[in-house]
């Protein structure tokens, strides 16, 4: 039996050796590079586009604007919902919308051509939030039938809502928000297109979950027949829903290929990936749930606002799916009333994402279930078991729940996580929480979505090939297909090859989405294999003169009695062999948009997750200690793949629960980079435990149900419930970040507002008045003065890389050439150039300068570290101070630490996400530009103390610690070396006292400082992130008394902040808990936080206390 057995992915050898070919790896001779010109405005009229100059530039083969394409809309969900063109015509509706596209021989030429296209925009008022879009007199994103920004409104009552309300003896109400999440697939979206003018056919190698939908859209937009568009098979680097319909590169690549007659590759940058591809819809849910005296649910009433972004795409069906979920979750005595509104905004559009509207409403429903259980005095798991669906139930949305093992899932997680014992210990900072989910296994949202075909060829050479039209974006369908075919044909798995995607080779399938991939592909492959098997048995029966019923297929042979014939020998007489194509159909109803009631899926999956968390009272950080995820997903065809789907979904859910959110300022994405997007790294998550109940669904093919999406659905509410259990605060807005938790803890403990006594600090009056004036016109005025986006100019060619071997050569070159820049580790050089923040022409390589690579101690015990020593080597040096090792371990990743140098770390430029991500801010564009952090999202990476026009901070963690260690920097200058205390080295956020021609030679740490008791602590959003807050205490302790102290806070002020007030409170005192408690807060009077980062003051105090406690403990020890 191959079905049900742990099976390696059939392409594991290629995938693990770099041999799999993704879009970027397909090599076609003469391929052109395409780049997209995007709107810098959230809403503007396109007055004119002048592209002629760009068309004439060297290497440029085509420039296309909307005028060059047929005036057609993407179909997406069709009818009135279709609203988007591949290139904007007349109006742009979000920052990043495609305006023009270029194909050139080389990437630099394409980039230069983009810069040469002149677009004149007439700015239009933009609505960038749902609130603004629904306001009276709001600017309209589209001219919809509603006459407002409401794209779709659903007002639907299921069952007896009034009756339910009357039966309720207790209700809970709340507002729950789930922000925008990015798929962040590791492979950037992309397409390679080739036009064959003779055959009049367009070939596409494209990273998609659904070749069919891509073909259909490309054909209708470009005016081709479906048969003229051929999708080829490639490896697909992740999907999670983002590639289940057409994205926005396929048509553009295809149009360019048709125009130029050359192959064209369009692959998005990571920044484009974050900022322009469709993300998870932001949901704002107001929910009321009632229960009766027995604890049975009576009714549910919800008002849902969905942020559509600028175009519909799947917004309507995501909204519809969320309504059906509301009506299906749990048995409900009375009824369910949902009013859902899909609202246009001038932001990049939302789209399909794992869970499809369910994670957002699950967060509301499942958070509220705990609140209701508490109100009823019931255990959350008991309460859920009481109300859980059972096999045979029909939900209010018409879903027929044939096999339902939700109770089994709840019992499994209760046992596995040690629920009873842990639940008894709430409020201690540790807590456990639970949540459930249910999901479709392939919703019939299209007429043909209940049908899939597969073809099987048995070749005379013995190859057995299965052809399937869907795609395997990492979800394991190819292996599932091979397992099913091998089993049905009685052959070894290794004999099966599987071809997917290729639309010439494969029959009809709509693709892998809606958790249908395994259900449909197994069904189709099994149906085709059984048909092939019948043919083979007939052929064998003919040869052997026995009835077909007496023939069986075993070990690659047809067997009758003692006679065996190899199956390839059965087909030798059939020319190319035997080929069979079969269709498999599942019995489902088409989704009903009018009533919202239909049995849309062949089976429904269930899950319960239990989570244990620890909440850090000092920083607000939530650490997940354990996750148990129990799933009723039917039988598992490949348990290894199923568990991997579950664990992966849980971790993606933890990302949404604890960190991931796309953030906007004026409609423009603030954080389009992995660096600024807190998705989980390996050390951020625990080893998730998956439990697969493995109970076959009696009605589903092979007993399987979907698992791809459901695994992420219960995670966020389970975490929120665990946090509530741990510390007694209920966070109703995701993600549950330290700022929200710490503020809630402060409110819980009755901590009032901190007072900063600005009236007594004349030095802050000017800044205070500016901050007052910012929202009152100053920001808008400054913002208008420049384009919001500076549009990074094409990079200047770098003409030389000089490699001097001694310091004088370096200094001389830097002094003589204004356009020269030193490069040491180089980890920030290329990013700064890409971000348009540096434009060097000459690079001066420091890696060959031996003097910079030294590390050692003087006779008096001072540590001297050359500026060119890598962070990794610094930590590896045998006699390195533990404090410095600890700091280094907290910086970035191993890969970066191997490259980055001590000098580079100290001198690195600020990491403010506005500055780095293209905002025309004060530091980038000068005094007439605003600081976007004053009103924008400043919760994590901006100053709470000493900020002036710019609110950024010095990002170097080493800088923070080394200031505490009284370090000095030795600087090579044209006139000879000079020494400067590190504390005076910093002049601003990531800005130093280095003058032109100067470099850092070495860092000196005096022996006396090294002898002190020191500790460094850092709060960050993900493993390897820059500090949100850091603290370093370095104490000279004798018999428990502080003789001297250095206390430095990082990421708090423009430069490492020496907290003299704290030092003063410590000096001469015994280091007792009381001393620590009062001293740690002594600096707060100097703070002047922004509206969003007040919490950092508390977090810094907390980290500082932790440092001092650690010093005390290590001194005692």
């Amino acid at each position: 039996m191959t079905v049900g057995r742990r099976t390696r992915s059939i392409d594991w050898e290629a995938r693990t050796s770099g041999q799999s070919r993704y879009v970027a790896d397909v090599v076609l001779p003469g391929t052109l590079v395409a780049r997209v010109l995007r709107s810098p405005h959230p809403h503007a009229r396109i007055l004119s586009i002048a592209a002629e100059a760009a068309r004439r530039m060297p290497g440029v083969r085509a420039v296309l604007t909307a005028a060059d394409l047929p005036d057609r809309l993407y179909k997406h969900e069709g009818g009135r919902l279709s609203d988007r063109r591949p290139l904007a015509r007349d109006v742009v509706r979000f920052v990043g919308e495609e305006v023009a596209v270029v194909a050139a021989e080389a990437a630099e030429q394409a980039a230069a051509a983009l810069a040469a296209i002149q677009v004149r925009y007439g700015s239009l008022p933009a609505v960038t939030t749902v609130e603004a879009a629904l306001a009276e007199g709001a600017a309209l994103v589209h001219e919809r039938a509603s006459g407002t920004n409401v794209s779709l409104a659903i007002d639907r009552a299921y069952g007896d809502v009034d009756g339910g309300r009357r039966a309720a003896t207790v209700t809970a109400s709340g507002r729950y928000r789930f922000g925008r999440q990015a798929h962040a697939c590791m492979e950037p979206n992309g397409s390679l297109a080739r036009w064959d003018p003779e055959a009049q056919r367009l070939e596409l190698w494209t990273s998609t979950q659904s070749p069919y939908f891509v073909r259909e859209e490309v054909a209708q937009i470009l005016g081709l027949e479906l048969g003229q568009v051929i999708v080829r098979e490639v490896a697909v680097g992740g999907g999670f829903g983002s590639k289940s319909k057409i994205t926005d590169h396929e048509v553009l690549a295809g149009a360019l290929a048709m125009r130029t007659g050359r192959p064209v590759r369009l692959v998005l940058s990571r920044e484009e990936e974050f900022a322009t591809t469709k993300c998870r819809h932001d949901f704002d849910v107001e929910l009321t749930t009632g229960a009766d005296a027995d604890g049975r649910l009576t009714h549910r009433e919800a008002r849902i606002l969905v942020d559509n972004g600028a175009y519909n795409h799947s917004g309507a069906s995501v909204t519809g799916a969320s309504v059906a979920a509301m009506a299906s979750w749990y048995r409900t005595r009375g009824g369910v009333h949902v009013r859902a509104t899909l609202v246009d905004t001038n932001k990049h559009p939302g789209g399909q994402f794992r869970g499809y509207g369910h994670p957002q409403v699950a967060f509301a429903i499942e958070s509220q279930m705990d609140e209701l259980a508490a109100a009823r005095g019931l255990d959350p798991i008991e309460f859920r078991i009481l109300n859980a669906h059972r096999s045979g139930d029909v939900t209010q949305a018409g879903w027929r729940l044939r096999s339902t093992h939700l109770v089994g899932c709840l019992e499994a997680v209760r046992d596995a996580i040690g629920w009873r014992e842990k639940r008894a210990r709430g409020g201690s900072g540790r807590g456990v929480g639970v949540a459930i989910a249910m999901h479709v296994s392939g919703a019939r949202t299209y007429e043909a979505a209940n049908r899939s075909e597969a073809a099987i060829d048995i070749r005379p050479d013995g190859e057995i090939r299965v052809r399937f039209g869907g795609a395997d974006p990492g979800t394991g369908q190819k292996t599932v297909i091979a397992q099913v075919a091998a089993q049905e044909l009685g052959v070894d798995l290794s004999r099966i090859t599987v071809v997917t995607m290729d639309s010439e080779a494969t029959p009809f399938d709509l693709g892998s989405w809606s958790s249908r991939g395994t259900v449909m592909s197994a069904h189709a492959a099994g149906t085709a294999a059984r048909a092939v098997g019948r043919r083979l048995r007939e052929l064998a029966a003919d040869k052997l003169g026995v009835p077909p019923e007496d023939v069986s297929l075993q070990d690659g042979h047809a067997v009758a009695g003692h006679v065996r014939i190899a199956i390839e020998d059965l087909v030798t007489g059939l020319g190319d062999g035997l080929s069979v194509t079969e269709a498999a159909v599942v019995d489902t109803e088409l989704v009903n948009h009018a009533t919202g009631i239909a049995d849309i899926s062949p089976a429904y999956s269930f899950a319960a997750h239990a989570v244990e968390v620890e909440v850090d009272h000092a920083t607000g950080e939530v650490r997940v200690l354990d996750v148990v995820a129990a799933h009723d997903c039917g039988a598992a065809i490949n348990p290894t793949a199923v568990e991997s789907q579950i664990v992966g979904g849980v971790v993606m859910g933890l990302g949404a629960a604890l960190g991931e959110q796309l953030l906007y300022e004026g409609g423009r994405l603030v954080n389009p980079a992995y660096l600024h997007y807190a998705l989980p790294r390996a050390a951020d998550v625990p080893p998730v435990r998956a439990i697969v109940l493995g109970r076959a669904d009696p009605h589903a093919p092979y007993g399987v149900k979907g698992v791809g999406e459901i695994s992420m659905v219960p995670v966020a509410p389970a975490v929120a419930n665990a946090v509530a259990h741990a510390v007694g605060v209920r966070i109703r807005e995701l993600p549950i970040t330290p700022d929200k938790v710490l503020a809630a803890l402060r409110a819980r403990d009755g901590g009032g507002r901190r007072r900063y006594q600005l009236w007594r600090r004349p030095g802050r009056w000017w800044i205070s008045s500016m901050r007052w004036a910012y929202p009152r016109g100053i920001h808008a005025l400054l913002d208008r003065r420049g384009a919001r986006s500076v549009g990074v100019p094409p990079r200047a060619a770098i003409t030389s890389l000089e490699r001097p071997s001694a310091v004088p050569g370096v200094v001389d070159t830097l002094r003589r050439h204004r356009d020269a820049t030193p490069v040491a580790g180089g980890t920030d050089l290329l990013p700064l150039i890409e971000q348009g923040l540096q434009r060097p022409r000459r690079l001066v390589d420091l890696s060959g300068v031996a003097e910079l690579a030294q590390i050692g101690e003087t006779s008096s015990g001072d540590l001297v570290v050359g500026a060119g020593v890598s962070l990794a080597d610094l930590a590896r040096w045998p006699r390195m101070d533990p404090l410095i090792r600890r700091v280094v371990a907290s910086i970035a990743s191993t890969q970066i630490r191997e490259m980055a140098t001590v000098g580079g770390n100290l001198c690195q430029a600020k990491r403010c996400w506005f500055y780095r991500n293209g905002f025309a801010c004060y530091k980038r564009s000068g005094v007439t530009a605003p600081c976007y952090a004053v009103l924008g999202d400043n919760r994590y990476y901006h100053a709470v103390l000493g900020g002036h026009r710019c609110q950024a901070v010095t990002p170097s963690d080493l800088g923070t610690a080394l200031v505490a260690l009284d370090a000095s920097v030795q600087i090579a200058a044209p006139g000879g070396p000079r020494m400067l205390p590190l504390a005076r080295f910093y002049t601003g956020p990531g800005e130093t006292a280095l003058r032109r021609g100067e470099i850092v030679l070495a860092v000196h740490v005096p022996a006396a400082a090294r002898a002190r008791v020191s500790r460094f602590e850092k709060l960050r959003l993900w493993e390897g992130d820059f500090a949100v807050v850091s603290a370093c205490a370095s104490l000279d302790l004798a018999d428990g008394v502080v003789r001297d102290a250095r206390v430095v806070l990082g990421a708090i002020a423009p430069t490492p902040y020496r907290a003299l007030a704290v030092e003063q409170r410590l000096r001469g005192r015994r280091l007792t808990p009381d001393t620590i408690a009062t001293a740690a807060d002594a600096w707060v009077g100097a703070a002047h936080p922004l509206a969003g980062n007040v919490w950092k003051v508390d977090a810094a105090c907390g980290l500082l206390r932790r440092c001092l406690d650690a010093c005390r403990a290590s001194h005692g020890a």
Partner: protein
Amino acid sequence: MRAALRVNGRSIEIDVEPDDRLLDVLRDRLGLLGTKEACGRGECGACTVLVRGRPVVSCLVLAARADHVETIEGLRDEAGALREAFADTGAFQCGFCTPGQIVRGVALLREGLPADDMALRREMSGNICRCTGYAGIITALRRTEGARAGSSR
């Protein structure tokens, strides 16, 4: 300018621009397509290669400064047991980050894995995986190390 590289044991001299990235030289000039670009900013680890035996992100390495380079293509045999362990533990789904994970893993196995699982997870945190939730990757590394220890005994 002229760059003299040793890539997977083979000496190569080629002309490069001063700011050519090692990643592009490997992929576009040498046809070594196993090294993947996912962010181009050194933030994800997909393009990890070894330079002088150390794991680095090839999207930030200037090709002109690189010397002794090992890529997934050169490491596939050394990584044989690790690759099989990846297949057995569900340590990859889409596979796009996998070459980078394997290369990073090889470097760690050479120096010996940290005893503590959290320390191992920290070491692997420069390589983002969006599909698997990392559990398989960590298990695969441990299994490979265990098998190695067993066979050397």
